[in-house]
């Protein structure tokens, strides 16, 4: 047909950043667990070798499945923590959810050599190819896809501006605590080191990074629980961030 594509009257707030291949997403690949690294009391990083992994862009996630002997399958989405070029490996960081079927297996049963299945990478709207200045806002395990962006920028020495606001209950609950640099401002909600205020992320945290916005402004990426995503995205809007430049990955 000669007519152009349908365009809705209001432009979509968060169009995809990259094209996503349907065929790579359709294939289940076997991933072999090669290492486990503890991050906090509740979270650990799981490193996998994935032969044939198509490569991902920071911010993307995958679908993972575990299969029981009777054929029963449990599948969940997980963000990819590692940067794109990691020699055929990917890393996931999982919170141990109380009573969780999949995270429970990872935290209590999994050991190096175990094989699971993954398909992906999935979804292009939360991807950050390392081009636009990025303001990253995450809480808890919501920092996982944002860390892939931080690592990517660092690995390639990109000079595109990037800031990370990361919320955790306390210093001991902060995932990747040793890896943060000057780009990161942690926010502690329950306990904090001496001299650091305790409390929910607020306008006080957002205002200074909004004031630092480079010409053309920030592309904002918000990730975490739905409650956090609602709260943080409202703070950004109130601080003047345009709604069509806020991308939100909600963990449900």
């Amino acid at each position, binding site marked *: *047909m000669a007519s152009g*594509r*349908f365009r*809705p*009257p*209001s*432009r*979509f*707030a*968060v*169009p*995809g950043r990259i094209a*996503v*291949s*349907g*065929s790579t*997403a*359709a294939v289940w690949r*076997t991933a072999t667990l090669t290492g486990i690294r503890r991050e906090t009391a509740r979270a650990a990083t799981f490193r996998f070798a994935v032969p044939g992994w198509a490569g991902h862009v920071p911010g993307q996630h995958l*679908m993972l*499945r*575990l*299969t*029981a*002997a*009777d*054929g*029963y*399958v*449990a*599948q*969940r*989405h997980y963000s990819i923590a590692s940067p794109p070029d990691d020699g055929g490996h990917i890393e996931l960081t999982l919170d141990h959810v109380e009573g969780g*079927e999949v995270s429970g*297996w990872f935290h209590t*049963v*999994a050991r190096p050599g*175990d*094989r*699971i*299945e993954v*398909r992906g990478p*999935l*979804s*292009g*709207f*939360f991807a950050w190819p390392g081009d636009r200045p990025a303001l990253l806002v995450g809480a808890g395990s919501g920092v996982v896809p944002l860390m892939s962006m931080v690592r990517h920028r660092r690995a390639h020495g990109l000079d595109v501006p990037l800031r990370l606001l990361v919320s955790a209950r306390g210093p001991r609950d902060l995932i990747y605590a040793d890896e943060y640099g000057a780009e990161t401002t942690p926010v502690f909600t329950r306990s904090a080191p001496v001299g650091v205020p305790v409390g929910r992320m607020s306008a006080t945290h957002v205002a200074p990074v909004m004031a630092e916005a480079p010409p053309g402004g920030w592309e904002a990426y918000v990730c975490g629980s*739905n409650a956090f*995503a*609602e709260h943080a*995205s*409202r703070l950004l*809007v109130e601080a003047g961030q345009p*709604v069509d430049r*806020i*991308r*939100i*990955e*909600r963990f*449900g």
Partner: protein
Amino acid sequence: MHVTRGFTGRPRVSDPGLPPGQYDAGDDWPVLSAEVTPDLAATDWSFRIDGRVAEPRTWTWAEAHALPTSAYDGDIHCVTGWSKFGVRFGGVSLDAFLDMVRPATTATHAVAYSHTGYTTSLPLADLTGGRAWIAFEYDGRPLPAEHGGPARLLVPHLYFWKSAKWIAGLRILDHDEPGFWEQNGYHARGNPWEEQRYSGD
């Protein structure tokens, strides 16, 4: 089949209402929209159907509420893996709207779009025959904003990304035009019973 060492999983539920690969989310109702939840008042809401129809038309909140009400009692299924049983939505059957605009005989598909600009594509056949609604209420109460209030499309027999939140309109087409998730690798139809999650499934 690749059995995962030491994985047994939850006790099996032999629930015929649970599509393959889904689990029962119980009382949870996860929110997975990719955009900021809009601050959309009912008085600012409108719903339009145009494209391959005899009489394109826009309804205001009051006009949509003047149509016969219709409820959905049943289950919903999200592509991320959760299903929610025994939900109750109140609204108007999409048939009531479509009967007024009269789709052309050549019409085969629709793009549903939101007041946020979100889009999703569906075969027209999935939107007719008492299987789709414009929903205003959940459990007898106004639909919460984070779940698509004041009004969302409801197509419960397909994965829930097809049930566009903050519904603004339908463009009726004579061909398929992928919406937001469909362009991002997700399936054109999204039937949970055939596990059509990604294109290629």
